């Protein structure tokens, strides 16, 4: 399913609108307006933009949770559509504010998501290995209702890793976390890169992006305004580039 090509994700002139149903009249909101970009294998790419810029829409399109209006999206050269789901084995996704069934344990939750990715099979060893990686091994048999927000986020990352995917898609993984949890999640992402995984990350934290991203895509009102390589920014400069791009983006 993975290809020899160096491209992990490809967006080609993608348009996406949402229809908001009204009492008398429906309203159409354009979320993506001709977006094109490529993400190479083994790189960490950050998606940046103000609220409503289209970051989460891009992430949902990659994960096959939405349909396109027009254009094409490919993940490891597999065209994305609602009919094919096999390519999803290659993706590990963490939504913003993940929710897990509170009466389940961390290990059972991982086994459940592992079984969904592998067609119903369970693997206790793999679940424990991933829990160890995210630092939840000691609490593997504890009910999730006792978990803090940071632990929930780490569990979500564990769920995204349990089936050993090639591409990891994280939607604001450090949102609302304390500095120590943020650092732990950053270290997990860097270790994933060392293992050869591709990471796409949506975030509001520019300082985080500076530390881990190889490239940053700046979105504004559904359009890509700039794609910046790591070499192009030094400390604090990314914030300036971002503000200049977004403020004068209109």
């Amino acid at each position, binding site marked *: 399913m993975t290809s020899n090509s160096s491209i992990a994700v490809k967006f080609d002139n993608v348009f996406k609108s*949402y*229809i908001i149903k009204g009492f008398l009249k429906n309203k159409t909101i354009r979320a993506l307006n001709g977006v094109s970009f490529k993400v190479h294998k083994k790189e960490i790419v950050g998606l940046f933009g103000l609220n409503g810029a289209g970051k989460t829409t891009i992430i*949902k399109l990659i*994960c*096959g*949770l*939405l*349909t396109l209006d027009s254009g094409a999206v490919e993940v490891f050269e597999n065209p994305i559509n*609602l009919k094919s*789901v*096999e390519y*999803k*084995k290659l*993706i590990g*996704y963490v*939504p*913003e*504010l*993940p*929710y*897990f*069934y509170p*009466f*389940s344990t961390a290990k059972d939750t991982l086994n*459940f*998501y592992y*079984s*969904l*990715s592998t*067609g*119903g*099979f369970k693997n206790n060893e793999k679940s424990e290995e991933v829990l160890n990686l995210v630092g939840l091994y000691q609490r593997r048999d504890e009910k999730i209702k006792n978990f803090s927000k940071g632990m929930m986020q780490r569990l*979500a990352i564990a*769920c995204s890793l349990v*089936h050993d995917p090639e591409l990891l898609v994280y939607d604001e993984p450090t949102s609302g976390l304390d500095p120590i949890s943020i650092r732990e999640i950053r270290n997990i992402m860097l270790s994933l890169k060392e293992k050869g995984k591709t990471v796409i990350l949506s975030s509001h934290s520019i300082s985080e992006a500076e530390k881990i991203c190889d490239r940053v895509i700046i979105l504004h009102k559904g359009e890509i305004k700039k794609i910046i390589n790591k070499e192009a920014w030094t400390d604090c400069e990314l914030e300036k580039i971002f503000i200049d791009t977004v403020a004068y983006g209109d």
Partner: protein
Amino acid sequence: MGIRTIKSISWESAKESLNSKFAYLVFFFIMLLIYVAILTGIMAVNDEKKVLSDFFIAVTQISLLVFGVFSSALGVSQDIETKRIYLILSRPVKIYEYVFGRIIGVWLSAFFILFFINLACFMVFVFKGYFFDLNYFYLNANLYFKILCISSISMFFACITTSSFTAIGISVMVWFVSHFITDIKFAFDKMKGSVHFMKYIIYLFPDFSVSPSLYSDFKILIYSFVVVLFSSYFFKKTEI
């Protein structure tokens, strides 16, 4: 069809339904009604067995109806509200596998509740020195098929409207209408003129008004299966 995937989702769904506060409330309600049934039975003196049987059937019917309708409507809409559905559908899971898994989970938990009520009733009967009538089991089996059907309808409306309140409201209305299908058909047959065509709408409803039989149960089962298929189809079209 990914049977193993459906099994995983249904097992998780059943665990969730039975562990919810709502299920605890239903269990409490069942125990309370069984206690009331025992008291009423004592007051019935010579007809105690009949009163107990009727009361237990009523308890089973109300409890399972409330549980089935609420669990299937809330299950899907909670998954959407909490965005847990994204975690599930970002895996290689097809929409129909998710919908079937969810509804089978509700059916499993409804079966568990039915078993629990029957066990409690059986113990009361044995304690009172009565024997279970075979008809009582037939009625329970027929009731279970009706619950399968109404929970499927509840899920159908939850899938197309993504609102649990709408789904619960419509399902309860369908439940009542379906118990008067024979009468409604008779009334429509007597009507003339432009309203006559409305009698065909009634064929969209399941028929709970006929006497319990294997054939009627089979029809209800097929109806439920078709409703779940339609739920999957419409849910696929819904942008979540």
